[in-house]
């Protein structure tokens, strides 16, 4: 049975929203506006010549919507990088903060503002989960001496399709004067986020490894990831660790430790403990986000 049929609401509005959503996806109408708080911070930081550039740099690196779109602009013909920009750190180092500030401003003006409307908690959870996955990705990569920048970016953007879907559903609901329960919206996000994420990586010309992480990060797919980078495997585990940290009621430690991805990453119990110890500093970083 499909998750949609399992939900308890009247089928009609769900199907109505679904078909409008599919229509938008097929037409490639996949905008991801910035959260109002983030757009506001971008304005403040870029307008103040005395502001600390590292604050803008970390905002760009921690916000999935801003990060994805900055990468897209950085790789556009306007900037013509010597070779593709594949990480946010590389963007900072190669293009400099002056250009990055201009890009951030442009993105915040052009992408519009995410109208959260009653979904504040859910939106916050999506953003926190994305950053937590990126940060756990970093730690997993560090432990295995893999590419840390890669792992972070893949974690941050692995479910970038979800907020796009949420944004579209909120818009559709408003236009159609419909109100779906959260369960149905969550089901849409689960169902479509990989394909939407893939379309976004095409539209935004995101690095190949991000596409690979989006496509293959699930438990049953990471083994099919084609490249030798391990990004899908790392993102899969990072996603679980982020869920464990942010929604501890969903999974106990025993279940976490028994996940096949732990064996496939060759992690011993001490390794997993050291990763779990990173939970606290990661929570601190999440709390410092402008959400």
């Amino acid at each position: 049975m499909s998750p949609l049929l399992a939900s308890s609401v009247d089928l009609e509005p769900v199907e109505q929203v679904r078909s409008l959503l599919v229509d938008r996806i097929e037409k490639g109408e996949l905008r991801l506006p910035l959260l109002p708080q983030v757009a506001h911070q971008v304005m403040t930081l870029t307008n103040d010549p005395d502001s600390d550039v590292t604050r803008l740099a970390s905002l760009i690196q921690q916000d999935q919507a801003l990060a994805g779109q900055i990468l897209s602009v950085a790789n556009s013909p306007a900037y013509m990088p010597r070779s593709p920009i594949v990480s946010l750190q590389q963007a900072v180092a190669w293009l400099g903060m002056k250009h990055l500030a201009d890009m951030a401003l442009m993105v915040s003006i052009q992408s519009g503002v995410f109208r959260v409307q009653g979904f504040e908690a859910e939106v916050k959870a999506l953003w926190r989960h994305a950053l937590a996955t990126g940060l756990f990705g970093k730690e997993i990569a560090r432990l295995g001496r893999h590419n840390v920048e890669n792992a972070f970016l893949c974690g941050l953007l692995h479910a970038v399709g979800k907020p796009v879907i949420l944004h579209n559903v909120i818009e559709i609901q408003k236009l159609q004067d419909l109100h779906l329960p959260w369960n149905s919206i969550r089901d849409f996000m689960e169902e479509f986020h990989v394909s939407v994420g893939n379309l976004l990586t095409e539209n935004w010309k995101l690095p190949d490894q991000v596409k690979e992480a989006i496509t293959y990060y699930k438990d049953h797919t990471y083994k099919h990831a084609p490249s030798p980078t391990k990004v899908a495997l790392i993102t899969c585990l990072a996603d679980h660790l982020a869920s464990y940290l942010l929604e501890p009621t969903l999974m106990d430690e025993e279940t976490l430790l028994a996940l096949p991805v732990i064996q496939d990453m060759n992690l011993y119990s001490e390794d997993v403990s050291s990763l779990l110890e990173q939970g606290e500093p990661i929570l601190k970083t999440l709390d410092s986000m402008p959400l």
Partner: protein
Amino acid sequence: MSETLHYDILIIGSGPAGQKAAIQGAKAGKRVAVIERDLEVGGACVHHGTIPSKTLRESALNMLRLKRTAGVFDFKLRDDLKVKSLTQRLDHVVKAHSRFIADQIHRNGVTRYHGRGRFLSDREVQVSMTNRTIQRLTADIIVVATGSRPRKPDNIPVDHEHILDSDSILSLTYLPKSLTVLGGGVIASEYASFFSLLGVQVTMIDQADRPVRFMDAELTDGFVQAFEADGGTYHGNQTIAEAKWDGLSKVVTVLGNGEVIEGEKMLMALGRVANIEDLHLEAAGVKPTPRGLIPVDQHCRTSVPHIYAVGDVIGPPSLASCSMEQGRRAVCHALGIDPGGSPETVPMGIYTVPEMSSVGISEEEAVTRFGGAIVGRSRFNEIARGQISGMTDGLLKMVADPCGKKLLGVHIVGEGATELVHIGQMGLLAQMEIDSFVENIFNFPTLGEAYRVAALDIVKQRKP
């Protein structure tokens, strides 16, 4: 926990040292088991050391050739294509090599345990697996071959993001514009030259006045010249006061003399440490040295007679070639098998661009031991093959006794040095006279001819 199993020989670690120890044991008809904590066998050699670094080197050289061709055919190689082809080839070679070793171990009937080995006593080892199960094993002979890993100095925050080590550098997804390399040893010099070749602005910093100090100074001078001609910089006689990421875009290194060097990324290559902490050596009664190595005698036997240690875990020369031989010899000794004559002449190969290689003794050592030496030199620009192949910046040095008769050592810098040195090695083993290199005919045109030219140079210097 399952029941304790017994083996004749138990080996901890499946790098070159462990692998050859295992094969030797199996060939002697013994029941052998290898414990390896990684998913794949092969050790640092296959996954982070020799094989990947040499594959990277080969790819960098191929790109250099392509770059040269690009001038003729008017095309430009994009940086992202460089990185992509580098990493894909790397993965392919590493996987193939690891599979080959796994097959070899399997074919020889060696049992493999996937887990971390830890001594419970001098005869018993516990294997802890990732699924948290435990297997206990006992053995009559135990060989420790747990290798080494990059050293992490306390004052430099290696985060594998901005400051990398020789393991994490292998997974870069883009070529940084600039790279600071801390260290002047083999690994530092090799990576510095590869990245320089790939167009990265490389700065090497080390305490020593020249890199790879144990090699002949004329060789390392040749390397530094080539490296600097390619755009690299070597800062010798330097100490590091501080090295850290600036929080934005670069790694800042402050030298002891106050000079500041900036690089987009940093490679930390200040030596390696032996992997002994998981072993719980005290339970076996083996005491490591103050430098954290396992002390052994000439047969690689520890203070506990039935426990041997081989490879990087016992310290220098820390080469895959020597580790393999130590593994084989240790098991031969334990089983009372004659291992054959001991290798007196082990060549050293440094895969910088250009390569450096040595066998036998140096000029200084010859002077100390024989009261003098005659050195013959041959520059590759004097050799037809050197001119034809564009390899004109090489040098081959032959060291002979004070009479100029006996060959004592060969030292080469230049492309192909690590292959070319084997002629010298065979000459030393066969105790060949310098005249043999003059009297015999080499293929023409080849770099081998450099031996003849250097030998002639010695003959010219003989006192009547």
